[in-house]
Each structure stands twice: as structure tokens, then as C-alpha cells.
């Protein structure tokens, strides 16, 4: 990094973090990592834990692969990437089982499936193999956050409308819909908890984003 003359947080580097939050978002623009976005967003807590887990894996795998990038034999580079990602995923799984047991039960198989999250291999191939470690870490943070922010938005709407609660790690379940609403006949929308509504929620987010940013609309 020392030979790198530009400052750590130059405009170009900052863009690595901000672009995936908006116009380069992995879920809503690149449509990657959709499966887990649908599966773990019925409640806010697993969505947040999943976001942090994915962010951890994408940041560290980007960093490690970027460090190794000049040593990796081209013919086995995908295997090397897989080994690194798999090791990190198992690490996350073990740590969750030790320190967040209940959440790990809720996330069940989806922690293991982080390895198949296209965002991670996509960033390794597209970015970490060709860039320096620091930029790769920033790119990882950006893409992890871009994935996480969408998960949290979906989970927020699904939980509030579906269960009338917000579940936060270390805080617990908060009832956000006042009891008086229920007394007047308001009902939780059970459909929001089911997977199809996650897809529709993603669709609405994509719609809103495209309506606000015309660059995203393909020209015919």
C-alpha cells in the first residue's frame, strides 16, 4: 500500500464503498444473492446477522485473495477462491453456533450457503484478483453493505407488516403496532411472512430505485 500514492480515502476509493449502495447495488441492480435475501428476511434479527456474516466473508475473502493475487496459479484460481471463501464461511458458522446459537438455528442452512452467494465469488473474480488489498477491502465493505441494506429494508417491512414487531439483536422483540390498532380491527398481514412477498418487496425496491435513477433504465 505504501507505493500507492493516493490517500486512503480518496474520492476514487470512497466510490468503491458508495457505488454498491446505490447505482451498482448487488441485489437490486446486479440481481445477485437473491435467494438468501428472500429466505432470511421474515424477521429483522436474522437479516441483520446474515448481512454482517456476508459482509465479514466478502471483506476478508476480498482481502486474502487480493494479497495472494500474484501468487495464485491461474489454472486453479477458482478452487483457491472457493477454499478461502469456504473456510471463512465455516468460521462464521462456528462463531454463530458459539455466540448466537438461536440466530444460528434461524439462519440454519443459509449460513453455509453464503459460499454460493454470487456476490462473493463475483467480487473476487471481478475485483480482488486485479486490485490492491486496501481497495479490495473497501470494495468488500461496499458490496457487503449494499447487500445488507437491502436485506434490512426488506426485513423491516416484512416484519412490521407481517408480525407487527421489530426484532433486534441484543434488544429483543419490540411491538411497534400499538394495541389500539388491533382493537380497531387491524390485522397483521400473514402473507408478508411468506417467501413470495419478499420477492415482491425486492421488486418494489427495484421499481423505486429505477424511478429515481434514470441511468439504470436500459435504452432500447
Amino acid at each position, binding site marked *: 500500500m505504501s507505493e500507492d500514492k493516493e490517500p486512503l480515502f480518496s474520492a476514487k476509493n470512497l466510490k468503491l464503498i458508495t457505488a454498491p449502495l446505490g447505482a451498482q447495488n448487488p441485489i437490486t441492480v446486479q440481481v445477485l444473492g437473491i435467494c438468501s435475501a428472500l429466505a432470511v428476511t421474515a424477521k429483522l434479527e436474522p437479516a441483520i446477522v446474515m448481512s454482517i456474516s456476508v459482509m465479514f466473508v466478502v471483506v476478508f475473502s476480498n482481502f486474502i485473495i487480493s494479497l495472494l493475487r500474484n*501468487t495464485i*496459479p491461474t489454472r486453479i484460481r477458482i*478452487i*483457491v477462491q472457493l477454499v478461502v471463501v469456504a*473456510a471463512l464461511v*465455516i468460521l462464521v458458522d*462456528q462463531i454463530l453456533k*458459539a455466540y448466537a*446459537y438461536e440466530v444460528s438455528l434461524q439462519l440454519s442452512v443459509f449460513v453455509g450457503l453464503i459460499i454460493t452467494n454470487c456476490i462473493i465469488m463475483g467480487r473476487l473474480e471481478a475485483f480482488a484478483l486485479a486490485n490492491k488489498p486496501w481497495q479490495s477491502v473497501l470494495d468488500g465493505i461496499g458490496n457487503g453493505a449494499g447487500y445488507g441494506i437491502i436485506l434490512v429494508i426488506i426485513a423491516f417491512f416484512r416484519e412490521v407488516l407481517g408480525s407487527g414487531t421489530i426484532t433486534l439483536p441484543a434488544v429483543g422483540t419490540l411491538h411497534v403496532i400499538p394495541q389500539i390498532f388491533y382493537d380497531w380491527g387491524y390485522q397483521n398481514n400473514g402473507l408478508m411472512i411468506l417467501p413470495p412477498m419478499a420477492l415482491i418487496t425486492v421488486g418494489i425496491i427495484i421499481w423505486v430505485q429505477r424511478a429515481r435513477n434514470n441511468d439504470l433504465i436500459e435504452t432500447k
Partner: protein
Amino acid sequence: MDRQGNTYTFIYASVLVVVVAALLAFVSQTLKPIQQKNIEVAKKIDILKSVNVASTPKDAVEKYEEYIGNNSFILNYEGKKVEGDAFTVNLEKEVKKPPKDRLYPMYICTIDGSKKFIIPVRGKGLWGPIWGYISLNDDKKTIFGATFGHKGETPGLGAEIAKAPFQKQFSGKTIFDDNGKFTSVLVEKGQNSSGNPHAVDAISGGTITSKGVQAMLQDCLSGYVNFLKE
């Protein structure tokens, strides 16, 4: 060395997997005691749930001491006590043995002065293992409470066995008929089972899981008959 050559590639791959394997083995060994404790706490929560005592990971150990403590033992098929700690019996291995060779753990819980017998059960659902705890009143035949868990039954169908509406049905059912014959609890299709003292209503769309629960109860409870009839 030639970075694209076979030797380099081979050495690179070998070193990489050895480093990764060592790292993961180390992490797994370090975290194992904590993970084991989590599993034990989850088991205690489950056992307490079968006698309708709600607990959280924070107070489960305390409540387990209060209601059950060391009051558990292992039985053999003849209903005689054998040496060992009931809590550490691995039911997954036991249910694979023939009934006569199995160890039968039993927990005794005291709630409001009355004694409850808690029996662990384990069997097969549609996709994977299912398990649970059945608590009997001190008449040794009427079910006080039941709780079930599963590894991966279909959400909304088979997975409903882990929810209160299904489990509540068991309360008040009896596993022996008036002549003292073992009947277990049947999991039957149709609402008319509510009148039958030895049956509960199965889950619509979860037929195989429901049958799994029935088979599990028959299989696991029958081993306790000699003890319960004493």
C-alpha cells in the same frame, strides 16, 4: 519458479489446504465447549417446555435446577434403574438399537408439589429427525404436556408439530386405556379425534410428519411401559 507449472500449482494447492485445515481444526476445537453448552441449554429449555415452564437461554439452567435438578435416572426395558446420567444419554444412538437393549432416560419434575414424569422421544419425520419431550402426570398415564422439534420439516406443513396448537392437543390424553393396556397416542386425520382420549388431530398436508410423530410415540413410549405400570 514457473507460476503456471504443475509443480508450483501442486505445492500451492497442498500448502493452502493444510493451512486452512489447521486453522479450521483449531477454531472448531476452541469453540466446541461453548457450542456444547448452547446445545445443553437448548435441551434444558425443551425439557422445561414439556411441563409448560417457559424459559430463556439466560434463566434455563437456573430453572432446570429448580424444577428438575438431579432428579433424573436411566431405566432399562424391564423398568429397573441403571447407572448413568440421564441427561447425557444420546437418544439418536439409542433409538437405533432394538427396544430391549436401549437405555431409557427419565426426568422427574416437581411443579406446585405434584410430580411429573418427563420422557424424551425421537423418531423420523419426512425430511429428517424429529424429537420431543412428553410429560406425564403422577398417575403415570395422563399426558401433562408435550413439545416437539424437528430438523427440517416443511414450513407451514410438517413444521407445525413444533407449534403450540398441535402440542396443546396432547394435554389430557392418556397413553393407557381403562384396562391398563398401552395405547400410545394416535395422530389421526379428522376432527373427531378430539373426543378420543388416545388420539390427536394430525396436521393437514403434513401426513408423513404426523405419522412420524405417531410412530415415534409408539416406539419410544412403549419402552417405559414396564416402569409406568409399576
